């Protein structure tokens, strides 16, 4: 029997190279875990019926000596990434029976490497939420404590890795959605620089903020996935080859925006954060307090820009060309009936909020101002990166919380306080496990690097894993 608990992509690859493990054995072991636990944890919305066939194919590739580090590795896919011929619902009723007509760029890449797509994971509807409680298919339970949320929106992907149902996963991150669930489930999650990974074939939420990234057990594994999915794609007009712009900070000076940590942070989170900084200091890092007065406006600016983009992006779901259609008397009635039957409460809330901030008379006060602030925050980061190599923050203000604990939408939004700056400024940022609370819940430490310093972000995170011990 394979001990999946300590198995990483790196180790599994080495074992497969030596013939000590086959992809078929590995995928079978993951499928067994899914069979045992998925009814309780609700992580996978669908387990792909051809997973073992893919594994057999991967075993052939490995035998022929043409495999890469991802060949034969079971990867879980968030339910907002298109895979030809498979359902992609974004955990919404409006796309319940939608079947993808092409592969997302990142899926095409994984297939080229012979990775095994094991299934699609549960999430908050259209990636809007921080707990998966907004899924139309019921929430995911945190494998570490099933009475608690796994975080969101990529809660299923983070939980799949934490529950050893896959060795890695893809998530998408618009304001926190890779890093926060990774933190709450005790795994590594990385949001790449905006434009480093193509968004082609990802259900759009907020196009100027969305980014696909890896979730894995270690920083090294996350980087293996990132290296596979990054790259320029003609189908995403913002996509570039990030290596053309590569930035390599010295990786010695770590900035701490202390003023930003004053309010609303769980005392245990703060204590763990301070302990992590102390460990880095002992390991020779220069830890400096920095002043970033506009960082606090990232979240309010985010909650203007994001819903504005959501309201325009989701306007395409009208029951006409695909997705749920509920017929009304006129074409407009059909739009309304289809959208009302298909969208859940949080999605409606954000579309209506988006319509408001974009409406005549409010556009200048909200949307335009938020964009101006976005530039201010970008500039503030640019300036601070002349002084420090990374900006470090806790990933989330609290560890995993109980179901139903955050009933008020604003309370849920505040979960994203430390993660939205990276999306607002387009930075690469990683959440790495940094210890456990007194009740055994994981904490995450977050490194934010300059734009296109993705490789350095993986390196500092790996260093922290070593230092942390």
């Amino acid at each position: 029997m394979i001990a999946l608990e300590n198995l990483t992509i790196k180790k599994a690859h080495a074992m497969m190279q030596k013939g000590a493990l086959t992809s078929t054995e590995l995928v079978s072991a993951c499928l067994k875990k899914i069979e045992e636990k998925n009814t309780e944890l609700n992580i996978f919305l669908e387990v792909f019926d051809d997973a073992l066939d893919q594994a057999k194919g991967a075993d052939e590739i490995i035998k022929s000596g043409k495999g890469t580090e991802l060949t034969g590795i079971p990867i879980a896919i968030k339910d907002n990434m298109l895979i030809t011929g498979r359902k992609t619902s974004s955990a919404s009723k409006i796309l319940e029976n939608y079947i993808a007509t092409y592969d997302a760029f990142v899926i095409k890449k994984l297939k080229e490497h012979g990775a095994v797509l094991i299934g699609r994971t549960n999430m908050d509807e259209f990636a809007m939420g921080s707990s998966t409680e907004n899924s139309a298919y019921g929430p995911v339970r945190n494998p570490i404590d099933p009475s608690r949320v796994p975080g969101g929106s990529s809660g299923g992907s983070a939980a799949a890795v934490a529950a050893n149902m896959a060795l890695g996963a893809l998530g998408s991150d618009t304001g926190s959605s890779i890093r926060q669930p990774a933190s709450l489930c005790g795994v590594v999650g990385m949001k790449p620089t905006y434009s480093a990974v193509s968004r082609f074939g990802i259900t759009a939420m907020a196009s100027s903020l969305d980014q696909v990234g890896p979730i894995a057990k270690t920083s090294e594994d996350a980087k293996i996935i990132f290296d596979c999915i990054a790259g320029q794609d003609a189908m995403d007009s913002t996509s570039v080859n990030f290596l053309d712009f590569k930035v390599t900070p010295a990786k010695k000076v770590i900035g701490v925006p202390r003023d930003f940590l004053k309010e609303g942070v769980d005392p245990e989170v703060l204590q763990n954060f301070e302990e992590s900084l102390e460990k880095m200091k002992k390991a020779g890092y220069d830890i400096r307090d920095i002043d970033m007065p506009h960082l606090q406006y990232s979240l309010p600016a985010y909650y203007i820009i994001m819903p504005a983009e959501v309201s325009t992006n989701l306007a395409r779901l009208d029951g006409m060309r695909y997705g749920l259609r509920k017929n009304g008397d006129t074409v407009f009635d059909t739009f309304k009936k289809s959208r009302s039957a298909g969208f859940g409460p949080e999605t409606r809330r954000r579309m209506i909020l988006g319509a408001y901030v974009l409406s005549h008379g409010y556009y200048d006060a909200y949307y335009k101002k938020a964009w101006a602030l976005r530039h201010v925050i970008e500039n503030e980061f640019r300036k601070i990166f002349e002084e420090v190599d990374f900006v470090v923050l806790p990933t989330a203000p609290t560890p995993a919380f109980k179901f139903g604990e955050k009933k008020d939408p604003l309370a849920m939004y505040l979960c994203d306080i430390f993660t939205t700056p990276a999306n607002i400024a387009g930075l690469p940022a990683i959440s790495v496990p940094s210890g456990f609370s007194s009740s055994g819940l994981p904490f995450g430490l977050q490194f934010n690097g300059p734009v296109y310093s993705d490789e350095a972000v993986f390196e500092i995170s790996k260093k922290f894993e070593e230092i942390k011990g």
Partner: protein
Amino acid sequence: MVILEFNHHLAPTKVRALLLHKEERKCYTFFMTIQDVENLAELAKIELSPDEKQSLLKDLEEILKYVKVIEGVEVSNVAEEHKLRNVWREDKIKQWDFSRELILKQFPDSQDGFLKVKKIL
């Protein structure tokens, strides 16, 4: 100035909801009215139940109150340039690997390979 009969057993949000019900909005800075919510729902092509309108109004009030902090921030002389790059491609006809068959299958209603919708005009 409107003087309110204040019930201390009620949470502030509840008080506001009551206020709204009585249409005594003058003493609070309200961002929206039920009518606004209805107009926005119409724009977003969403049908809302009366209860949902009320709770949405309350939620939107809270959210707008929160995001409103940006109003007081000075942002003069901000460079409007953005580092995002537009990546262009030649405007040439090219065969993509989309499956026509799969796309047609997604149509909720069709006739002879055409998408069927209610008449628009």
